[in-house]
């Protein structure tokens, strides 16, 4: 009986395993290197857990801002209000120097830095839902008080009908610090990418 059962057991052929694993890990390394040299654009969408984004300078073309009520997935405690008021900040094309993003995934604190060595981080269709913003901002050709559903600066991103919104042709933010709940970017190039565990952005 015992020998019969053993004969049913599958087994792993370890040479076959290494034959597929090693090339895959080589491709992993290649992807990381290509991304760090900003030859490869990656895509981001994070939400649910708050995280911090800092950047020395953000220069953007096409800026929109309006308020959103976000229903957080995590805060479903009884008696706890489940809604957070956030501002949605959308930028059509953004270049960021000294970008730092720290996020906690499953108890593991992770810090990503990029754009420290001359070449800025490049992002398209960047949307950040933040509840706290700090920095010095300069806008050109700004409109304040426009209906959020008539925004045009970032194609495809519009707010609810009737809501208070502003948009600008360009934006420059120095010493940006955002406490955000969701970020999405169509594409991200991350030159000089560093992935590190532990530690938060300054």
């Amino acid at each position, binding site marked *: 009986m015992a020998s019969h059962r053993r004969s049913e057991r599958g087994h792993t052929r370890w040479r076959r395993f290494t034959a597929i694993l090693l090339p895959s890990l080589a491709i992993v390394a290649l992807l990381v290197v290509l991304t760090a040299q900003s030859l490869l*654009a990656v895509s981001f969408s994070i939400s649910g857990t708050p995280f911090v984004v800092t950047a020395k300078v953000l220069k953007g073309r096409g800026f929109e801002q309006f308020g959103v009520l976000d229903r957080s997935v995590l805060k479903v405690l009884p008696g706890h209000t489940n809604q957070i008021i956030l501002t949605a900040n959308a930028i059509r094309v953004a270049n960021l120097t000294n970008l730092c993003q720290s996020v906690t995934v499953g108890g593991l604190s992770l810090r990503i830095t990029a754009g420290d060595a001359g070449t800025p981080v490049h992002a398209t269709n960047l949307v950040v839902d933040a509840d706290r913003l700090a920095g010095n901002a300069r806008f050109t050709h700004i409109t304040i008080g426009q209906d959020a559903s008539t925004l045009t600066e970032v194609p495809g991103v519009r707010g*609810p009908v009737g809501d208070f919104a502003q948009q600008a042709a360009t934006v420059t933010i120095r010493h940006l610090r955002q406490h955000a709940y969701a970020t999405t970017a169509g594409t991200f190039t991350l030159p000089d990418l560093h*992935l590190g565990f532990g530690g938060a952005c300054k």
Partner: protein
Amino acid sequence: MTTDPGARDRQASGQRAAGHDEAEAIWGRLAPVIRSWRRWRHSRPFWGGLFVLLGGAVILLSERAPLPLIVHIGIQGLAGYLVPTVLVLCGLLLWFNPGQRVFYSLLSVLLALTSWITSNLGGFLVGMLLGVLGGSLAFAWQPRGDTPSRDVTQSPPTTQPSAGLSLIIGDTQSETDPEPPGTTRPLHPPDQRDPGETGSDQAGPAPFAARLLARRHNAPLSYRPAVFPALSVAIAMLGGPLGPGPPQQQGPSQAAGARAPAPVARPPAVSAAGTRSGLTAASALLTGLSFDGVAAVRTRAGTVPMLKFSMHEIILSGGEIRAPATVGSSPFIRESLASIVGHVILYTTRLSYESRGRTITFTPRRPPAALPRNVTYTNLITGRLYLTSDTLQSSWSEAPAAL
């Protein structure tokens, strides 16, 4: 005391025996379960499937962007969800359809690698490595011995050409009907997925993809679910200024019968927000100020008469703009302002300031007669506003953007 130990020992051993019998009974019941679990586990690439499943789950957990937003970002955002979802599916299929493991394991490795680009750097590297590891393990797994064992007869025979192989070879017959009915259908590669396919009754991925695709095709224009128009109408009827001020003075509803004749100014090209809002400043230096007249400003809930001012620049101290976060919500968004320079045009339902202890208020019903070109207003308060300018400087403090 001295005569008792024997009896106590007997009693204790009796208890032990009873406990032993109980344990044996539990074991007798559990043993077949454990045996069949082991048989199930050993007859398929269990660990490979588990790691692939975990990898997909980690990537999915790392991105929980609101779905409407994903839909707006388009195919890139969609891929961010699709890749880990198919990865999870591959893990499950490695368990429940191990006959096709070569295809699923290679697909898992490829999807895990793709997730670096599409999905938060492959769930911040963790999910990607789990997927690659699991895919490799599953690829290397095979049943011991050449003779098919009892369990293999339950799962599809391993000699059957895999879906992936048939795709490569071009064996369309085995691709369309690769296995006996009743077993799980193999996964089509993602590039074969089209909206037409989503109408099928296939359980699992298809309804999810159908939902995503359906939302993508008739994607709504607004970023958030539509707001009730009635609410904005109500807000518009409440209308009115923000902040302190004599309540009897004005309101858009009264403005239809404006008494004081004021020049008619041109309204802005786009429609203004339907919510209340206001600009306040401890002091504001207005340069090159002129009053252009009353304009009928278009909003969602109809036109609202507003005063139109134009000026070269406004330098503010303690200046901020407040507006409700969304239509009908009480919390406010605040933005602090430093300077507004170049071709400044301000539409507002009300403008008030303090002068020698008195509050002076202008409304479309009581428009200003003459204004100084350059003036510093203290405690400037405006009603609902629409403002454009060439440049604007604002400094956000660490204070919350939303109150």
